[in-house]
């Protein structure tokens, strides 16, 4: 990493000399929420990348094969086999669904943690309570996706409940922890609103640096692009996809009752439609999420203790990855796995930039702690 130029490493200047330092106190809730939030987002995105490479396509192929087996059972008039196969399809969909949910809930908990860090100056609670709520939130943010991930593997083993397994119990308990933490934060915000109670914590430092402006503008543009694409999808594709799905399913059943070969092509069409719908929705949601992430990261740039040059490089890497992933996810329909691979690299770029910013923040925290130790 390059030499830090904006404030010398090893400076003997007191740590609490700037408002950025004051909001990043060692025992403070904002620091815990920022570290926890970025770590959750990075882990969630890494999980999403691993899922895309090792599970998503394989699961789609297995589901297609199961649907084909169901049409064979229809051709043979075998009702019990149809029921069994739909049971298997349910298992495959649960496998895929819980992994998507793990990815989504981990990254979203990270976004919320960063958002909560931003509103800490308006939470009129004691520092001890704020830190307790921050710990509760981060713990819930870790346990919720862990519980969701386990749902498919643990199933109903050793469960005292007829339909709820231990994975669901863990996920629901973690969800309750998140809700409790959010209710606590809302209570603090309410106190601040009602009484204008003093919080004793400085607001985020005003910042007009290149990094903040680029992330704010870039993030807003990404969200805007996501909205425009979403509007295009809703207007041009949503209704036609819905009509096509029903039509293809009827063709599958009609073909299966005449000759099995007639339905095989329709099953292929069904798979293509599912893939088309999935990549279009993924492009829409990912570009918006990355835009939101860029906006959130613009606020924590004062805490990234890296040289200006490296801070700018990581901002560019993050924005580049945020464009590459959704664009190449869309191109998967035309270019196939090559585009999928490039999209995964885009996701990895975002994870790397995020991790680099986290390292910068850890260095910032370490510098403050070391300076505080020297003062003592």
């Amino acid at each position, binding site marked *: 990493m390059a030499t830090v130029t904006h404030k010398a490493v090893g400076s003997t200047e007191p740590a609490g000399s700037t408002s950025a330092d004051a909001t990043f106190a060692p025992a403070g809730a904002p620091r815990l929420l920022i570290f926890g939030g970025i770590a959750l987002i990075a882990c969630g995105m890494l999980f999403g990348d691993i899922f895309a490479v090792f599970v998503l396509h394989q699961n789609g192929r297995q589901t297609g094969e199961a649907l084909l087996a169901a049409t064979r059972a229809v051709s043979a008039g075998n009702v019990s086999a149809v029921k069994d196969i739909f049971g298997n399809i*349910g298992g495959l969909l649960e496998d895929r669904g819980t992994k998507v949910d793990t990815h989504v809930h981990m990254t979203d908990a990270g976004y919320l943690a960063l958002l909560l860090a931003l509103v800490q100056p308006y939470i009129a609670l004691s520092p001890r309570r704020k830190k307790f709520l921050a710990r509760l939130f981060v713990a819930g943010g870790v346990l919720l996706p862990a519980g969701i991930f386990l749902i498919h593997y643990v199933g109903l083993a050793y469960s005292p409940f007829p339909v709820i397994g231990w994975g669901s119990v863990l996920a629901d308990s973690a969800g309750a922890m998140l809700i409790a933490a959010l209710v606590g934060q809302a209570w603090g915000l309410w106190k601040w609103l009602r009484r204008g109670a003093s919080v004793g914590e400085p607001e985020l430092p005003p910042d007009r640096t290149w990094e903040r402006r680029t992330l704010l503008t870039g993030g807003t543009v990404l969200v805007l692009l996501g909205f425009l694409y979403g*509007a295009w999808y809703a207007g041009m594709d949503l209704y036609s996809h819905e009509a096509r*799905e029903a039509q293809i399913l009827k063709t599958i059943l009609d073909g299966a009752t005449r000759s099995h070969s007639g339905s095989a092509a329709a099953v292929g069409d069904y798979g293509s439609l599912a893939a088309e719908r999935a990549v279009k929705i993924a492009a829409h949601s990912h570009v918006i999420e990355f835009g939101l992430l860029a906006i959130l990261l613009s606020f924590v740039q004062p805490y990234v203790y890296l040289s200006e040059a490296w801070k700018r490089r990581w901002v560019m890497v993050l924005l580049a990855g945020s464009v590459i992933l959704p664009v190449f996810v869309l191109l998967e329909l035309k270019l196939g796995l090559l585009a999928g691979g490039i999209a995964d690299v885009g996701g990895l770029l975002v994870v790397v930039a995020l991790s680099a910013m986290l390292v910068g923040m850890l260095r910032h925290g370490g510098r403050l702690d070391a300076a505080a130790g020297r003062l003592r």
Partner: protein
Amino acid sequence: MTPSRRLLVFGGIALAALGMLYGLHYALFVEHQILDRMGGSLSEAFVRAAQRQMPQAHDAIDTYASTKYDYVRQVDVHSHWTGLAMLMIVLGVAFDGVGFSERVRSWIAGSMLAGSVLFPLGVILQTSSHGSVLGSALAIVGSGLVTLTLAAAAWGFTRQV
């Protein structure tokens, strides 16, 4: 806190609460039933086809399509309301950095709040009557407002000193 920031932050919090309450109500009282109906109708279509009862199989496919139409939009309402709320709160924190007068910023914030309420409201109205003109019109106007205000905010961020 300037009026435009207050509008975005507290409007966003209120919208997030609305979106989460809708999601909670949906998860507790609607989702399981609608998922059962969706999975059940698709499975029934295949079973009926295996029994060579094709009119019933096609009816089951129509039921599946209609149920999925509602499901997709109901989930979208929840995710769009909470997502737009989060975006409003985040923009609210940085809104002083939008390089326009406070009057213009207040217009942008008010329009964003209006669009964020109307867009998912229009989508949910589409489920009460499939193909509802009022629902579609509200969704189009709402999403248009949100898109325009976001473009204005992006432009404003580039103008900041």
